[in-house]
């Protein structure tokens, strides 16, 4: 094949030089708009103090805790801490009872077990400086139809309030229903189809503070409203063991999952902390204008106020402890997250709820530890109820 030859001369066209890419309209307009937004953002960040932070020096604080991870994960809490030069790196222990088992607990700047029994144990074992920023009652969260079924059996009484969000639960009667083998379906001819036996689903007493503290409340109820002692702890443990066997393998805490769309599947009735519920209702009201009427709280008539201690093992940890105990912004945020201030202040979660038009619960009067056995007696009962493959905590 022979190439076709061209007889035409190549033409040379002179073009105008292109406009700089930066000056083209197609570039300038979108770039100008986005740069403007960025500038406004930068100014705003400057004003809030965030952008200056890289120049202030941030202390990275390493901490280990269980359910209180929720507090330190809150954006507003992070922002306030950051404004005070602190950033907390969290390790979730997967249950407070795991903290004392961790060899290097004292290698963290601070730990924050969910309740005082475990806290005291850690403090006795490895020392550290304790801070007491807030408390929160151990409660039972339930879907309304379940609470109403208990109410009809006179096992729960509604507390006064417009939205009927809170009930007082008669623990001895409630524990009795479980020990009798009653199912939710048996309770109400007209509604509940759940053929599972009646329990409040609880996290593992071997791993979670709430699980251990709930076991203590059940033991108190099953022991004729007497705190089990060294003399009868083993016997009481044996008596309540069937109740804890109903659930088989314990689930993880439902502090988060209960409030999701599949909450009923995770647990229609289960042990949580009050702050988890109040924080949810405060958030829901802010977002939608009304509280969620479908989820309610049952306050055990013999109750326990859990007091998460912040135990600091370093100067940085102590700084966080002091901030939590003294910084008014953090205290206000703690209240908005549903905590009670306990020893740290007089401002009340009731005020926060009232301001928002949410019913205020009555957790019942009493000392924070009125119904808890001595730590060694609780240990005896947990061992009796059993199945702590990692050893009995406390």
């Amino acid at each position, binding site marked *: 094949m022979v190439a076709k030859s061209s007889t035409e001369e190549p033409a040379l066209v002179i073009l105008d030089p292109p406009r700089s890419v930066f000056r083209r309209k197609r570039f300038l307009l979108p770039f100008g708009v986005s740069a403007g937004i960025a500038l406004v*953002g930068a100014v705003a960040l400057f004003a809030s103090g965030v952008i200056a932070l890289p120049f202030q020096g941030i202390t990275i604080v390493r901490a280990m805790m269980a359910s209180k991870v929720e507090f330190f994960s809150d954006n507003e809490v992070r922002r306030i801490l950051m404004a005070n030069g602190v950033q907390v790196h969290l390790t*979730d222990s*997967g249950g407070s009872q795991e903290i004392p088992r961790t060899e290097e607990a004292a290698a963290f700047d601070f730990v924050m077990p969910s309740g005082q029994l475990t806290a005291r144990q850690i403090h006795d074992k490895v020392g550290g400086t304790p801070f007491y920023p807030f408390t929160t009652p151990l409660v039972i969260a339930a879907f309304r139809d379940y609470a109403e079924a208990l109410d009809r059996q006179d096992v729960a009484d509604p507390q006064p309030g417009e939205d009927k969000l809170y009930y007082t639960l008669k623990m001895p009667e409630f524990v009795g229903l479980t020990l009798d083998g009653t199912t939710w379906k048996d309770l109400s001819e007209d509604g509940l189809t759940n053929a599972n036996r009646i329990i409040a689903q609880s996290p593992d007493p071997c791993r979670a503070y709430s699980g251990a503290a709930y076991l203590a409340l059940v033991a108190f109820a099953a022991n004729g409203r007497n705190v089990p002692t060294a003399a009868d702890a083993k016997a009481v443990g044996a008596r309540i063991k069937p109740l804890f066997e109903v659930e088989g393998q314990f689930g993880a805490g439902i502090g988060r999952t209960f409030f999701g769309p599949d909450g009923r599947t995770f647990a229609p009735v289960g042990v949580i902390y009050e702050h988890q519920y109040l924080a949810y209702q405060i958030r829901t009201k802010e977002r939608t204008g009304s509280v969620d009427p479908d989820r309610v709280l049952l306050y055990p008539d013999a109750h326990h106020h859990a007091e998460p201690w912040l135990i600091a093992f370093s100067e940085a940890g102590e700084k966080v402890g002091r901030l939590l105990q003294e910084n008014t912004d953090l205290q206000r945020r703690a209240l908005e997250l549903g905590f009670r201030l306990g020893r740290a202040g007089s401002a009340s979660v009731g005020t926060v709820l009232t301001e928002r038009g949410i019913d205020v619960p009555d957790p019942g009067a009493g000392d924070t530890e009125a119904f808890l056995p001595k730590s060694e007696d609780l240990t005896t009962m947990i061992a009796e109820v059993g199945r702590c493959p990692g050893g009995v905590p406390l």
Partner: protein
Amino acid sequence: MRAGLAALSVAALVLAGCTSGTPEPVTLTVLASSELADLAPVLADLRRDTGVELKLDRRGTVRASDELAAGVDHDLAWLATNRYLRLKSADLPLSTSTMLSPLVLGVKQGQADALRGASWADVAGRAAAGELRFGMADPRVSGSGMAALIGVATAAAGTGAALRAEDVTCDKLQGFLTGRVFGADGAAEVVDEYVKRQDEVDAVVTYESTVLSLNASGQLREPLEVVYPRDGIVLSDYPLMLLKPDKRAVYDRVVQWLRTPSAQRSIMERTHRRPVDPQVERTDGLREPIGTALYFPGTQQVVDTLLAAYDRAGRSGRVVFVLDHSTSMAGARIAGLREAFATLSRAGGFDRFRLGETVVLVRFAGTVLEERSVVIGSAADLEGLATALTTAELAETGTAIWSALDHAYRVVGEGTVVLMTDGENNAGMSADEFLAAWPAPPARTYAIRFGEADPVELDRVARATGGRVVDATTGSLLEAVKEIRGCR
């Protein structure tokens, strides 16, 4: 203009200083459940955004949990659930739930009407009769297969509590397993197999996410409807677990990314798993409430017992019913007996007579009146069995319990014997003669007594075989039969 640009560049630089920049690229090995192959596009985004590449080494959840308990060299594990691991191991690694999917039945629309709102008992009953044929992953390997066994067995035990080893002494799984046409190693593989054999079967037992993905894949000639067994949901929450503590920082980066609303949305849209973040608006198919969860067994022993029952599946099974037809049975007793057979043939749930099973009826009075053997091969055979006793006459010739049982032992083969009587032995062999004739009884024998039947003698013989006596004097005969169905 130039000054403006310069100011903007400074602002941009300052802003860039706020983020940590592009992090070091890093690769982690992950022991993962087999169905997580569908995460590939999500993992590509993860790598783009965080620099972390996850290399999934996939197998069934049960197998992976066994390996984890024994010790593996992976950096992370990402399984449908950590419950199987918790049964085996004291130490649970740091775990974060990432997404949700319940175990369901994907049922062809033609079959779904009959199963909407079904319980596990309804599913088992239809499977036993050949009305529901399905694929299900191997529970020795796969979490979805094991979850199905636990669901059926827990519902069948009916205690309202977590299954204990003593609740599974009698095997109530066989009716359900009759419907299992094919298996596979994992939830992903069973779906592939379903696509190949979709004209052969009615359903597949797997996760909601895989059923919805299958429907969206365009590979099905008839779409599947999701059926949630209302009385016993097993929900998987896909925890990402940290196996090597020194990879903690990277693990945190991955978890943080996975829990962002955009990643949660992307997982939902691409894999049809439910977001763990309640704030993420769900797509239509994922809003359905999934029902009551069952309590999960607390011991490995229960799981092992279920696997033993699974290994027995498909064995034919043979049961000889030795039925008293003396005149004392007239009235409510014979009516109760006929009703029990009608129910077990037509709607017995977990206890329904099943395809492949051989049912031998030995009617007796003073002698054996009739022996009739039915090998159940079709729905017609079940119907025949339902009415087998309706016209059977009673005879006024006495009650020869031990002679009838002697006859049963001659035809029982590998099966079990269920004797029902309301009278005292007054014809044929005596109990002593019977026991002397059968020093080593060939079959486990259960006796259901009502009326005047001698509990002591029945108990003596039943116990000699490893069986026992169930009393129907106060309760219904049907309940008594159900109590020992599946006991071998």
